[in-house]
């Protein structure tokens, strides 16, 4: 017989979206339990190792139809494995209309309205501005190429303790030196200091109405085997007065889909309008001689560049194409970024799509790997991702360690394709000028489009027909059930989304605390930024 536990607040997921409300609710006096699907690892566990069974414990590669998404799977969520670029979304993003022809963000949400919440998150993480002499070689090379092509280029603000950072380039594995600022270093320890309890390896399956008077929801979970996440080792249920759902944009809508019959239905926007943030990666095969002759760069005697694996993964980016006066679907940022070797598969060596990413020519390209430079365009996509019916358990079907199959389907519309084409043209204009490099986007044959920034699958907005959440982040028709992760973000952001997800979670907290207090919990909002 299983025992049903009770708590004031149940938080599902411990990334940016879960950790921040967990802290404010616990610090405000509520009893908080956090259920996290992944394991609880810390700095000593985060090894410099590409062997399967290392980073694959905390990173999932989720394959859908037409898209593959990278996501964190551990206490701290994607904040543990992200690349720490911490950017505020440009003002025009909040006015986006997409192909629906009406404003997609809640009318109360603008850049100015979100700035105070961005301020709080930047103070808590904290975020640092890289000076030019802290920008690693690949970022420097990209900046020099931008400058020569008549573009501007900025050092990227990062959630990194720059004095402690060793520029090892292992961020996907979690930071061994505790230099990268994840939720493990701020909001989560602050939450547990106020009594919040984190339970790793707990995969939530359903959310249903509670049966105990005074409680609103009953959350059922499976406990997972630490060595093989495919194996259940137990089950249980917890009733709560408030539920904060922050399982990530790949899991939150799936949990709600499965729970829909139990909850008496969920808004039709649940599991629709997914955005991959318009992510589009290209590899530049750089000519070392041109780096010396055209850009005048030399990092050591006789070595102009050969710096692909060196540094923090994200160093510099161009804001030139973030012009609010230009048309929607043509705006994007272009960012220098390093991806670990597991993605080398995707680089294209020829222009024949079916065979461009493997074979003899690709092997020749690999021999020039230290001279690669990769760039990420973050464009305006059309929110065209849709989830199919949920799998029997979890949010996807785990077929091997770290490899999952999702029901997510993504067919880029002409609008999205237009943005990608514009970004490709800009990458070439900057990097192919006078033969500096040869640029090709990652192959889409292997994995469809690839995103590390899943968003919008359970989004907020003013229009009930096209948004699942109201402007406070509450699921329409389900009082006390809040969504605060990337799924709540209405559109792609043209920058890396972590800071916006975190700022939106901060912004939702006063309302979540108020809703919880209305259920008789002695909770107050107003805790300071965690230290």
């Amino acid at each position, binding site marked *: 017989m299983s025992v049903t536990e009770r708590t004031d607040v149940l938080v599902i997921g411990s990334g940016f979206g879960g950790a921040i409300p967990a802290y404010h609710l616990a610090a405000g006096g509520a009893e908080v339990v956090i259920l996290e699907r992944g394991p609880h690892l810390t700095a000593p566990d985060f090894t410099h190792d590409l062997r399967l069974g290392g980073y694959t414990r905390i990173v999932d590669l989720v394959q859908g139809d037409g898209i593959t998404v990278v996501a964190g799977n551990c206490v701290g969520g994607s904040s543990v494995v992200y690349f720490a670029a911490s950017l505020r979304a440009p003002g025009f993003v909040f006015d986006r209309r997409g192909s629906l022809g009406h404003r997609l963000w809640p009318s109360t949400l603008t850049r100015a309205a979100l700035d105070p919440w961005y301020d709080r998150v930047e103070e808590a993480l904290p975020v640092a501005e890289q000076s030019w002499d802290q920008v690693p070689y690949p970022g420097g090379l990209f*900046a020099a190429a931008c400058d020569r092509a008549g573009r501007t280029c900025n*050092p990227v*603000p990062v959630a990194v303790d720059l004095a402690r950072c060793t520029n090892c380039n292992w961020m996907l594995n979690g930071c061994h030196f505790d230099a990268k600022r994840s939720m493990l270093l701020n909001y989560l320890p602050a939450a547990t200091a106020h009594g919040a309890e984190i339970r790793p390896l707990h995969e939530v399956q359903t959310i249903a109405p509670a049966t105990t008077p005074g409680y609103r929801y009953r959350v059922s979970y499976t406990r997972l085997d630490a060595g093989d996440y495919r194996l259940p080792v137990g089950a249980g249920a917890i009733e709560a007065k408030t539920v904060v759902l922050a399982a990530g944009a790949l899991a939150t809508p799936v949990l709600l889909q499965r729970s829909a019959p139990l909850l008496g239905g969920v808004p039709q926007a649940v599991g629709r309008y997914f955005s991959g943030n318009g992510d589009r990666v290209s590899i530049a095969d750089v000519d070392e001689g041109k780096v010396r002759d055209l850009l005048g*760069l030399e990092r050591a005697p006789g070595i102009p560049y050969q710096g692909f694996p060196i*540094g923090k993964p994200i160093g510099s980016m161009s804001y030139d194409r973030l012009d609010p006066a230009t048309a929607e679907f043509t705006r994007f940022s272009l960012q220098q970024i390093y991806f670990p070797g*597991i993605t080398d598969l995707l680089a294209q060596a020829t222009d024949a799509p*079916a065979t461009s990413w493997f074979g003899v020519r690709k092997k020749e390209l690999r021999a020039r790997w230290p001279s690669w430079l990769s760039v990420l365009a973050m464009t305006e996509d059309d929110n065209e991702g849709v989830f199919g019916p949920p799998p029997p358990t979890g949010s996807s079907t785990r077929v091997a360690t770290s490899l999952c199959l999702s029901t997510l389907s993504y067919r880029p519309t002409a609008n999205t394709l237009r943005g990608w084409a514009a970004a490709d043209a800009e990458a070439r204009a900057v990097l192919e000028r006078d033969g500096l490099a040869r640029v090709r986007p990652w192959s889409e044959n292997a994995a469809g489009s690839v995103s590390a920034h899943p968003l919008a699958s359970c989004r907020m907005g003013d229009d009930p027909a096209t948004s699942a959440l109201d402007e406070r982040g509450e699921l329409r028709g389900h009082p006390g059930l809040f969504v605060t992760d990337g799924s709540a973000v209405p559109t792609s952001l043209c920058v890396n989304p972590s800071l916006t997800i975190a700022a939106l979670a901060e912004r939702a907290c006063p309302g979540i605390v108020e809703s919880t207090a209305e259920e008789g919990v002695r909770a107050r909002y107003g805790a300071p930024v965690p230290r």
Partner: protein
Amino acid sequence: MVPGEKRYGGDMAVAGAAPGPGAVQAGAVELLNLPDLGIGVLLPELALLVNTRALAYAATHGRVLPPTQPPFVALRFTDRTALAGELLTPGAPDRQLYVLLALFAAAAFDTAAHLHTAVAIRQRHPGLVWIGFPAPGADGLWRFPDYSYGRRLASEHPLTTVGGHPA
């Protein structure tokens, strides 16, 4: 996926289409059998599937395969490449399985995914040597004290806000 030279005279499985080591020398088969991956038991079935497709390819392209070898091995390298392109094309049947096989073959070469990376570097893993993957320090950790050109290399965008953000 990552072609390499033959391992020995008369090696049929490796076509020998490129100089230097390939995915097989880099440990692709060891990786596919790695217990952590959990797919070793499926490999005979996957080989059967690939060989069935190789037979169909030979039949539709007029290739005569010697019966002494598995059909995929019996294909010439250019035919293997063309068949792989077909199997991996979006919309092809069982494509997800072939993508996983391609991913693991590449991961063996690019990341030595069946070995601890510091050990692989010490053993001069052929894939990591080929791509020029840097070596760790004595404690098995990577650090790059020299990592920056150390100077401003572009002008920042004029509308950059406090903290370095776009407007």
